């Protein structure tokens, strides 16, 4: 699974992207967010308030209940501010 971080999530995690196996017991975006939050350090800070975070799976906006598979590209970012 490819995981991407943008804007302040990239800054807080100090990571733009990583390859990660789907963690054991994780089947949804919400589960992955919980897993990442428990990594500690910058990740705990970045995922402290998940209401501030938006998610895309395979470049489509999804809800946190969206299911995940090991071949997915998952991206975490704040609400968009383009235009």
């Amino acid at each position, binding site marked *: 699974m490819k995981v991407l971080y*943008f*804007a302040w999530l990239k800054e807080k995690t100090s990571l733009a992207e990583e390859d990660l196996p789907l963690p054991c017991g994780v089947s949804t975006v919400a589960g992955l967010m919980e897993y990442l939050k428990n990594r500690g350090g910058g990740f705990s800070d970045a995922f402290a308030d998940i209401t501030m975070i938006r998610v895309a799976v395979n470049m489509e906006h999804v809800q946190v209940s969206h299911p995940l598979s090991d071949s997915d590209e998952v991206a975490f970012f704040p609400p*968009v*501010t383009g235009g």
Partner: protein
Amino acid sequence: MIRIQTEDFDVGAEIKNLVSGKGNIGGVCSFIGLVRDFSGNEPNGENITSLTLEHYPGMTEKQLEKIETQARQRWDLIETLIIHRVGQLQPSEQIVLVATAAAHRDAAFESAKFIMDFLKTEAPFWKKELGNKGAKWVAAKQSDSAKKETWENE
């Protein structure tokens, strides 16, 4: 057509190119978004010196294409163009150009507004302002989500 680029764009040349050779176009509506220049006018005395635009390559194009397709399904359009810049921009610089060409003006006006409203909520761009009081990520506006929802409930 969709373009993501760091360079500035020439509105006149882009519109001329859009309409060239298509005689059934009666009107072109365009919207240009600019970096606002608050020099010394920010309520908190902050002075914004530059803006950095980050995006999610691949998803940006995918989302903008989807918005363009939706606009073309909803209105009778002859041409559509979306140009969005990324990277570092200075106050007063151009950020985005949306242009729609149609036989009739209502389709052009409505679709350009529709594209901007969806771009603001669906396209993965993030603005970071750099000022004399440091850098901060721009917060999304609740009003932008409300505008998108108005279209969805029509």
